[in-house]
């Protein structure tokens, strides 16, 4: 379980101007649940997510992961318990597919055999035949393939939690649609607690068990697709759903 308790983040901008990126957000992501954070750019969704693995430190409030305050944990240990997937995968171009996926295992001191087995297992899981792909370099892969490797890498240490920052953002619609289906299949298979940031409402509804809508740092509504359609919390929510719902992928 990941729990946000009244979490705020204030950035000090130019000329001592204070910008509140996240404003007293409280949110509970249950074990095994996928919550999609959605909002326009600047709404604070990415900031929210990065405070979970302490890439950004909150100004106030508490975040609990598995019941433990993240502020009280060593950030390196914390991050190794939380898978992290970003837009365009962020694969290291000088390492092979196997090198990328097995990197954290290597740093954790696994022996070679165990790493190789784990890499093959994960490649199979994301539908990439290991014999064909493990020695390739990221630049030899398509965007969709890179993103699958990115997901496999995030799963390497079998973390209980996964953070995904617009993972399908930079892909063409057909690839994206394919990966969506694969994500849903994978979700059933690995049963992780996932926070996924997106600005695409249809994606959020499709992938998330629940959706959390942020506006100017404030959490506006949390709920299922049905909640958003039938019981919008405000005029803003219904307008947002109206405006962002046209584009079916």
């Amino acid at each position: 379980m990941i729990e946000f308790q009244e979490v705020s983040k204030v950035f000090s901008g130019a000329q001592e101007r204070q910008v509140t990126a996240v404003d007293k957000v409280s949110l509970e992501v249950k074990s095994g649940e996928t919550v999609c954070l959605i909002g326009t750019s600047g709404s604070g969704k990415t900031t929210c997510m990065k405070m979970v693995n302490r890439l950004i430190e909150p100004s106030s409030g508490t975040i609990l992961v598995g019941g433990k305050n993240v502020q009280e944990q060593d950030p390196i240990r914390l991050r190794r318990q939380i898978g992290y997937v970003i837009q365009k995968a962020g694969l290291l171009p000088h390492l092979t597919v196997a090198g990328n996926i097995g990197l954290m295992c290597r740093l954790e001191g696994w022996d070679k055999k165990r790493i190789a087995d784990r890499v093959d297992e994960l490649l199979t899981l994301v539908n990439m035949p290991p014999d064909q792909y493990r020695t390739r370099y990221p630049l030899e892969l398509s965007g969709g393939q890179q993103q699958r490797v990115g997901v496999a890498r995030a799963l390497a240490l079998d973390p209980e939690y996964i953070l995904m920052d617009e993972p399908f953002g930079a892909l063409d619609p057909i690839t994206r649609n394919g990966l969506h289906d694969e994500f849903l299949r994978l979700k059933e298979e690995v049963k992780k607690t996932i926070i996924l940031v997106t600005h695409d409402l249809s994606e959020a509804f499709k992938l998330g068990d629940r959706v959390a809508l942020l506006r100017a740092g404030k959490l506006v509504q949390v709920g299922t697709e049905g909640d958003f359609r039938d019981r919008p919390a405000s005029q803003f929510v219904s307008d947002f759903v109206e405006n962002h719902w046209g584009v079916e992928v």
Partner: protein
Amino acid sequence: MRRLLRLALCLLLTLPCLAQDTVKIGSKTFAESRILAEMMCQMLEAHTDVQVERRFGLSGTMVCFEAMTSGELDIYPEYTGTGAVTILELDGDFHDPLQTYLVVRKAFRDRYKLDWLMPFGFNNTYVMAVRGEYAKEHSLETVSDLKSVEKTIKVGVSHEVLNRPDGLPGLTKAYDLNFANARGMEHGLAYQAIASGEIDLIDAFSTDGELLRYKLKGLQDDRGFFPPYHAAPMVRMETLKKHPEIAPVLEKLGFRLNEETMQRLNYKVQEEKEPIPQVVAQFLSEEGLTKTAAPVKVTSDKDISFAQYLYKRRYKTWKLTIRHLYLAVMSLGLAILVGVPTGIAITRYSKVAQPVLGLTGVIQTIPSIALLAFMIPVPGLGLGVKSAIAALFLYALLPIIRNTYTGIREVAPGLLEAARGMGLTNLQLLTIVELPLASTTIMAGIRTSAVINIGVATLAAFIGAGGLGDPIVTGLQLNDTELILAGAIPAALLAIAVDQLLGVVEKLLAPKGIKNS
């Protein structure tokens, strides 16, 4: 990495050390200075037991003088006029040779603990010279006569003379001349330039052999501007105390050389290309100063082809190349050991990045000769190899620091964030992500530095550090094109070879996944 460091340290410690009890005799770059220095060496070798070390071809008065005061040199031939005006910066009239000598000797003894022994005898003062036919054409006899051509005459003087108060500035003031067209040039090149008509007026030394060869006319110094320049051995008083046998031996050379004799010796070396040791040995035995008549056969390099000449020099060239590489590689190694960590550090502390890059940039703008000269008074460096390595090291820093910094800064922020989010420590970020991705850029910086160092190392000869610059510097002074090429060609080939070699290394080291992008 640690092994590399240890290796570098070992190499540093085994730098050709200066034995404690040698007497180090220096000379400036031009032939006469070398001849006089060689003469003193041979005299000491013939009549005393002291170990003599030759450190010839040092660039300019200040380099020699600094080397004397810091104990890097014990003896070198200097001129009274230079001592008075350039070093002591004395004002006033220096026309009487004896008085000048006495004033200079006293001041040097009091201020610098340096003594002047008995002069060699000749006065090698400056003389302004024009082509014979130019003098005829404009009826020039004296320096005063230059007034009539001051607007059109093209003046080319050595850099020292161009700027020194006892050089061109003083001369033009004393004679009320306003040259419209005056520039500085390497003394060795000035003769060719005046012979070809590129320039019309040069400064020369009254004992230069070239005055004869190029049929130049020396203009009479009718207002007595130039001070007397009597050459004499300048010796550290400490050395004289330690080796009391030195002074009497060197004073046997006192007043042995008049202008004509000196001009003849210079001519033999400069025009007939006789080796200096041979010219000196012959002279000393003729004068009865050494007992053993040197049975040297005059072998001139004039009659063989350039290819044969290079072949004959091959072992010498090989040794110089090794020394050259030693200078360049040692300094490059140190620059890598310091530059890469510095480059990394300033990506972490962005506030100091610009000052550090600025400072190393400023070092880069210091002329190489000046930087080499700055190193000599630094404790522990002195004259020779260590100073050269230090200067080359400073030159090599900028490209390495800058490329390390840029290479790391150019790593995509997304990659860094992904890696940090996965749980890499700062050190792992550096070694697993940043350095591999920056390696191509860093290698390019190292390659740039290597080529710069091979080039600048040729100047190390000016401070007696040897290398392929030795034949270049000597050749320039002796006006020996073949000798210049014997240094310049291997140096150029070396630079190309090193560049190509590092290009291959760069390719091999480039991370695979990036290579095909």
